[in-house]
């Protein structure tokens, strides 16, 4: 049932209950009975209905309010119909209400504070109470006839009267015994619940517990009185009964209010802290505790001092008058402290709970910030490693050209001079051939390490130059735009490695390289018409590519269905 429907049901039951009560009071006034008893009765009835309505107004209290309203309504019917003189309907209503009132009472108490019964034990207890009530009042419903019972109130039989009768008093007594037993179980259940409740929740159960024990004791006592047949204390017990009609809903209302009071600010605080960014924890705490001057102090064990959220030290020896410091955490090992108005000292549990919640949030924020910083550091160090490796490649390439190559060239010139001095031409020819090979190999090595055309003319010309050297036709679609060096290098080696893989594994007839810029990203695509089925294995060239690309802040997509060629796609961030 929705909250709105529950509220509507509570409202209807409350109206019905009030009508019954007013009728009863008016009837009693007409009957000449007046005085304190009636006034209290009237006030208690109206107040109880008001409490039920108040509970229904609380968020989440609708179901509890319905349970209260049902009990109030059954009780009112019980009270009204008990000596409604002439109607068989009244007799039927009273007998039903009277029999079910104890069950309604049990449901209300057991369902507190959620409005629902919990567990099979509670449901069984209620079911047995209903059964006992039906047996207890079932006999008079079926067999009561006026004059058959000296102490019985009704003057007519119920609608269900069978036309015969017998002495059913033992049946009633048996059901009273059952009620007493159930009442004892009920009390034991409640004691158990009170004991099991956590310290914080026990306070909220206490008003209910007191009222319940009061009511249960009265209920059991009344059954004992009836069982024994003593009529004397009955009037006094009725008074207690009426007081309970007020006290119980009131206790429930106060208990629920206490729960909300305890849960409300902290619940809101936790929600708020979940959203709070750095520097927002202190205001959130101040709001939830209700002290706008509240300051949060975090204990830094390494430094042995308190700091604020911004990390600035707080001088705890210079706290002004009227303000106090409440440390949070185990004695001697504070995790944080709140500096607040000393009038809040009475609410120490709240302060501690709020402080702990805040500490969690702060710790969370701190850890996240730390993690983010580490991640950023990791990313940039990875990028730096790649950049360093690239710089190293350029350096090696340069050393090869400007060192080894120059010396080989000088050697070649020397050989030329030797030739002019009539050295052995065959030997000289061999030496020159070796030298040419060495120079070519050196050139290829240097190009593989770092192609100068990449730094000098950019990605497009460098990739075209790669394609010139391939064994299969490679279509290159690339402009002459320049990109940041790290991006060009990453893209170049992606293409180089991909074309290398095509040559080695793909058995392709042709391949295509497309380089373009889309939405501020440099897109590199290398596709072939080969056998497909390529996978990036650990330690393989593709994995190395993926790592290099990841270091540049991009990802690599490999599409390689067997028999359908391979497409490698990389999108690199390229700034503006």
């Amino acid at each position, binding site marked *: 049932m929705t909250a709105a429907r529950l509220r509507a049901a509570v409202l209807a039951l409350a109206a019905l209950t009030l009508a019954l009560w007013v009728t009863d009071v008016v009837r009693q006034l007409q009957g000449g009975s007046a005085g304190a008893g009636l006034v209290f009765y009237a006030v208690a009835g109206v107040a109880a209905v008001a409490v039920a309505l108040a509970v229904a107004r609380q968020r989440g209290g609708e179901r509890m309010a319905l349970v209260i309203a049902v009990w109030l309504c059954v009780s009112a019917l019980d009270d009204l119909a008990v000596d409604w003189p002439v109607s068989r309907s009244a007799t039927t209503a009273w007998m039903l209400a009277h029999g079910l009132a104890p069950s309604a009472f049990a449901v209300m108490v057991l369902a507190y504070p959620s409005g629902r019964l919990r567990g099979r034990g509670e449901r069984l207890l209620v079911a047995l109470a209903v059964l006992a009530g039906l047996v207890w009042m079932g006999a008079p419903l079926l067999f009561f006839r006026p004059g058959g019972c000296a102490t019985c109130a009704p003057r007519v039989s119920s609608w269900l009267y069978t036309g015969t009768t017998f002495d059913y008093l033992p049946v009633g007594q048996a059901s009273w015994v059952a009620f007493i037993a159930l009442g004892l179980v009920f009390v034991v259940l409640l004691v158990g619940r009170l004991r099991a409740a956590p310290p914080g929740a026990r306070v909220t159960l206490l008003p209910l517990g007191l009222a319940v024990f009061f009511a249960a004791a009265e209920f059991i006592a009344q059954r004992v009185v009836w069982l024994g047949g003593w009529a004397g204390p009955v009037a006094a017990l009725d008074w207690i009964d009426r007081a309970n009609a007020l006290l119980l809903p009131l206790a429930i209302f106060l208990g629920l209010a206490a729960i909300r009071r305890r849960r409300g600010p902290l619940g809101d605080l936790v929600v708020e802290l979940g959203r709070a960014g750095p520097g927002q924890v202190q205001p959130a705490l101040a709001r939830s505790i209700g002290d706008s001057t509240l300051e949060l102090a975090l204990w830094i064990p390494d430094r042995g001092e308190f700091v604020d959220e911004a990390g600035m030290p707080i001088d705890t020896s210079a706290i002004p008058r009227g303000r106090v410091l409440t440390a949070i955490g185990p004695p001697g090992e504070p995790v944080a402290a709140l500096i607040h108005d000393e009038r809040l000292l009475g609410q120490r549990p709240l302060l501690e709970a709020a402080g702990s919640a805040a500490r969690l949030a702060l710790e969370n924020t701190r850890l996240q910030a730390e993690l983010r910083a580490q991640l950023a550091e990791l990313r940039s160090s990875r990028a730096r490693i790649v950049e360093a490796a690239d710089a190293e490649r350029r350096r090696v390439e340069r050393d090869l050209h400007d060192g080894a190559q120059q010396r080989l060239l*000088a050697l*070649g010139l020397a050989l030329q001079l030797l030739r002019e001095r009539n050295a052995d031409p065959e030997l000289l020819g061999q030496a020159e051939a070796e030298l040419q090979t060495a*120079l070519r190999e050196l050139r290829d090595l240097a190009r593989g390490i770092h192609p*100068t055309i990449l730094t*000098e003319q950019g990605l497009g010309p460098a990739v075209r*130059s790669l394609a010139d050297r*391939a064994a299969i*036709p*490679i279509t290159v679609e690339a402009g002459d735009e320049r990109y940041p060096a790290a991006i060009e290098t990453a893209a170049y080696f992606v293409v180089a490695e991909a074309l290398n893989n095509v040559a080695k594994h793909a058995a392709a007839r042709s391949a295509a390289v497309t380089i373009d810029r889309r939405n501020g990203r440099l897109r590199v695509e290398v596709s072939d018409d080969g056998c497909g089925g390529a996978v990036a294995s650990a330690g393989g060239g593709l994995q190395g590519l993926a790592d290099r690309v990841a270091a540049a802040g991009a990802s690599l997509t490999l599409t390689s269905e067997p028999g359908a060629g391979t497409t490698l796609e990389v999108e690199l961030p390229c700034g503006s």
Partner: protein
Amino acid sequence: MRLVIADDSALVRDGLRHALQAHGHDVIATAADAEELLAVIRHAPPDVALVDIRMPPTHTTEGLRAATEIRGRNPDVAVLVLSQYVDADFALTLLRDSPAGSGYVLKDRITQLTVLLDAIERLARGETVVDPELVELLLHRPATFRRLGELTGREHDVLALVAEGLSDRAIAERLWLTQKTVETHVRHILGKLALPPDADHNRRVLAVLTYLRAG
């Protein structure tokens, strides 16, 4: 012939100067970097400048830029770029604006003095010089190679020499053919490749190189 040598390596610079002077050339100046080279040429323009592509400060393609600048300022000075890079784009950068008198050869050629001397002679005559290794690379590009399928073996040889910048007469000498036969071959080749017949063999070099590079 009046020559200028620009190379940041003294070893190479001096070795080259000795070798060239031994073959009757007049090395009027040497330079260790592009700036010095430009100053030297402004001061006394040579017939041919031999320019190392890698020079300070970055040791990448300073020589290429200097060569382009020299050719732009002083078209009478032929420039031979001695390069470590077999990259068509570098060569085309140099040849694009004024192929006549521009040369791009591998630096290895300084150890093959006859090849180097031949290149210098041709440049001085206003021809174009492209390193055979670069031409071979372009001819063997898979895409190019397929398109050249219609050429006969002899035409293929002639095309390679055209791309290197050789004149019809030089090709004829190299292949032991008559100049007339070479001219016929060239006409056939240009027809088959759908290139316009061009009397200027330097522009022809550029057209052929661009054709080889395309696709």
